[in-house]
């Protein structure tokens, strides 16, 4: 006899004991996965409020782009190129943090220098500051979004596992246990009848 998630089943006592142990382990695994699922749901719910700030950050970016356009208009391309020359490239570092066993990327600013030159036109400085402000707010949001994405992926994965265990694997194991128990009971009954018949024959022989 074969069960999809158990494999070939041997109706022996040893196999039954191993199967019972395995089922017990699976049940405690389901409990642990449920706890992880609940924790992941809590974590993602905590992030939800923060993720709603995206529209505000987008608004700030829009403002920054508007200011950039104005800077380009008032200062001209040569001045903008000078500002670009004075701006150090943005340096970031990506770290990986573990949240309930889920690996989450986290970006940190290593160096973030604005073009700090009073010789630049104020409108250019204003555009740079607007961008810096927007980027400063964008970064935690990016981190939160990446975290949420990973948590959501992990949550889906965990729920799939819990469902598979609860709906397929554990029932399969329990069915296999039941099958072995029935088979063993049948064997025992057969054995009992055989012994009983043997005793009857023996008794008849002694009397006869």
């Amino acid at each position, binding site marked *: 006899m074969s069960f999809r998630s158990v494999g070939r089943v041997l109706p022996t006592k040893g196999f039954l004991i191993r199967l019972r142990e395995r089922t017990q382990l699976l049940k405690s695994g389901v409990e642990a996965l449920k706890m992880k699922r609940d924790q992941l749901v809590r974590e993602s719910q905590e992030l939800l409020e923060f993720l709603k700030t995206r529209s505000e950050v987008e608004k700030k970016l829009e403002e920054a782009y508007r*200011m950039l*356009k*104005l*800077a*380009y*208009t*008032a200062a*001209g*391309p*040569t001045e903008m*190129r*000078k500002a670009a*020359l*004075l701006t150090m490239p943005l340096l970031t570092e990506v770290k990986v943090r573990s949240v309930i066993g889920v690996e989450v990327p986290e970006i940190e600013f290593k160096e973030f220098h*604005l*073009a*700090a*030159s*009073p*010789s*630049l*036109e*104020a*409108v250019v*400085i*204003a*555009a740079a*500051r*607007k961008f810096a402000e927007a980027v400063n707010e964008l970064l935690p949001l990016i981190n939160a979004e990446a975290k949420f994405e990973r948590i959501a992926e992990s949550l889906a994965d965990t729920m799939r596992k819990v469902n598979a265990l609860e709906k397929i694997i554990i029932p399969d194991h329990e069915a296999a246990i039941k099958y072995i128990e029935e088979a063993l009971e049948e064997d025992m009954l057969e054995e009992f009848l055989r012994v009983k018949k043997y005793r009857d024959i023996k008794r008849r022989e002694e009397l006869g």
Partner: protein
Amino acid sequence: MVKAKVRYLAVRTHGLYSHLLDLDEMRSWALIDSDEELFNRMTNTDYGAFFEGPQDLSNVSKVEEAIYRSLSVRFRRLLSLARGTKMELLLRNFLSKYDIENLRRIVFSLTYGRTPEELYLIPIGGFKLDIGKLSKTTKVEHLVDLLEDRGLAKIIQGWYASEYREPYRLDLSLDSYYVRTLLSMLEGIRKSVVKKRSPAGQLILSYAESYIMRSALKALYLDIKGDEVTSIYGKLPFKRLMNVINSSSNINELLDNLLKIEPYKPYAYEIMEAMKEVGEPWVIEHTIQKKIYLESLRISLKRPVSEAYILKYLNATEWEAQNVKTILLGRISKISRDTLYKLLELPTTTSF
């Protein structure tokens, strides 16, 4: 004889002034949608010669180049008229800010440039420094050796030798040097080109003060403390302004303090309004340029045929170039007409 030469120059400057654009005409450009129509309107002005066709009005580089070249032509024309007079030195010193700006760009390019092509110079210059020769240097040390103006060389050398090479230190030192050069035209009785109390002297003092105010406003906007700014400037004759800068720790404080002083009040107010509206004091240049223009208008009226009028012409030229740049680049960037109008608005002094 000397006075006659200056008078002659002033009269010729009146002629040059008549070539400047009328503000209403300039503002009407902001309303023109078609490049062709605008091109036709511009052909009759000094800028027309620098555009080959209407398509050039959509090209940012061509627009900027045309404005700079027209500015340069006007400066050169004035300098050629002033050749051999005492005014030539004053004009060269006044215009040396373009040389200093290009020098600053060369230094920044040599210090921070990632490729040799990253040298963006303004096509105006050569008033006191040979920018062509200086721009060919590949090291700051060579640049310092090549500089004939030892004052400038000392500033660059000191900055380059400093530990952090903060751009603002170089900027403020160069600004201070430029203002000192300008003010040196007023010092001494025999040597002075113009007398301190003459309208031209007043105009130079007012211009220098505005120049320092603009530089300080931007420095404080960049979160540099007021006392640090004044320590880099050194001793300058604008006691009231320097005290205000010195006692301010950020731009808001500086604007608040400027608001308490009558001559600075309207300009501080205008910058504060922009801050309220946009959150950033992005109009500093525009406001100060306006102040310079209005002040030069006011002072030059005292003596229309004098050195003051010649200096006023320079300020008016710069004001016009700034406005034309704003209109033409604003059209390309699709800035709304309202915003462009607001930028070109020139309030009368009585409206404050």
